[in-house]
């Protein structure tokens, strides 16, 4: 199975481990991910205002490159990129006026032909979690992991259709295929504070504290994420929350889901 691949800025730097393990596991599973040749930052956030179109150009250029390469699917890893690409593609498909403006500016004719998929979706729909379970060499038996979805993979409900917004299960099913135990806890989709950690740390820290406590009290030993910013927030405030907490064990490492897949496939 062949795909175009869009890494995004963080995957080449702070989240290198995410990219490395995604690419090595894809190879082991017989998936061909080809990085598109020229890409820019996707903008990190989908524009929420109606009066600018510049933010759409970078994702549309990447989608055009996917089409030019003869591929019909573009794979993303970072939850931020996934959100931007999926929503942009949907907007181009459904909003004729926006599509006309973007194409007029870029002198192109993109109609939304390419499908935007997250690597997690590729694993679920194209490889199959059952097939992954058969390929696992080192089962993660006894590992109690807290799937943390965050926001960008799932929301808004009307535009992202990865999974149920209130009670998603794709991460749980993935972890079960690796032999691990997916910890059930109520804060798995609660926002980690996102970019508030760049300007309002006390708000982000408190948001993280509630997620951390919830996962810890339900027996989690670590978090599993798909977003570099979620990982940063969950990791960054742990030491000070730990200092303020009565629970001496309150220290949960944060893994990208691909790191666990690589471990289970013994790569």
């Amino acid at each position, binding site marked *: 199975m062949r795909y175009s691949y869009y890494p995004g800025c963080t995957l080449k730097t702070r989240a290198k481990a995410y990219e490395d393990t995604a690419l090595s596991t894809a190879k082991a599973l017989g998936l061909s991910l080809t990085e598109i040749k020229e890409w820019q930052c996707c903008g990190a*956030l989908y524009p929420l205002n109606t009066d600018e179109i510049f933010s759409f150009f970078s994702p549309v250029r990447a989608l055009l490159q996917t089409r030019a390469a003869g591929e019909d699917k573009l794979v993303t890893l970072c939850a931020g990129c996934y959100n931007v690409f999926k929503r942009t593609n949907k907007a181009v498909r459904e909003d004729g006026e926006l599509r006309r403006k973007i194409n007029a500016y870029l002198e192109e004719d993109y109609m939304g032909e390419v499908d935007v998929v997250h690597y997690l979706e590729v694993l679920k729909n194209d490889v199959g979690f059952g097939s992954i379970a058969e390929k696992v060499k080192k089962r993660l038996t006894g590992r109690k992991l807290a799937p943390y979805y965050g*926001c960008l993979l799932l929301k*808004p409900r009307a535009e992202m259709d990865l999974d149920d917004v209130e009670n998603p299960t794709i991460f749980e099913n993935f972890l079960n295929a690796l032999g691990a135990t997916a910890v059930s806890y109520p804060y798995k989709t*609660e926002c980690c504070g996102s970019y508030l950690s760049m300007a309002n740390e006390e708000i982000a820290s408190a948001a993280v504290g509630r997620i951390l406590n919830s996962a810890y009290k339900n027996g989690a030993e670590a978090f599993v994420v798909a977003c*570099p*910013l979620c990982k*940063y927030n969950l990791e960054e405030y742990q030491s000070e929350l730990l200092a303020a907490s009565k629970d001496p064990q309150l220290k949960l490492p944060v893994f990208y889901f691909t790191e666990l897949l690589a471990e289970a496939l013994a790569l």
Partner: protein
Amino acid sequence: MKVITEKINYNLLREVEEVSGQKVSACFQCGKCSGGCPVVWGMDVLPHQVLRYAQLGLVDELLHSKTLWICASCQTCDSRCPRNVDIPKVIEALRLIILRNKGGNYLHPNDLPARVRENAPQQGLVSAFRKYAK
């Protein structure tokens, strides 16, 4: 209650509705947005109140609200809204009214927390400066 019509800033209200693409009059104040907002405790005007203020034309008051900079656009509220009002878009429009004015930036690179310079993912920096500066 005395209704004072002179206070309503129709121009700003029209701008908010145009930039956000949302009709603030659609909100019937059920409060589901504020009930589920993960950072509501840090806000001075709660999400459902943002829409009420906007309905009443009290946009100038909203422009002085801390809430604009606390909303993380996580989209929990609009995914639950029974009237399909995209509140993060309304808040975005209010933020843009400030940011698009000279001197309106909320965040300057010199103000970033020290640990951000060390460890922050690019995704976080790009996100923050798209939300907090122009």
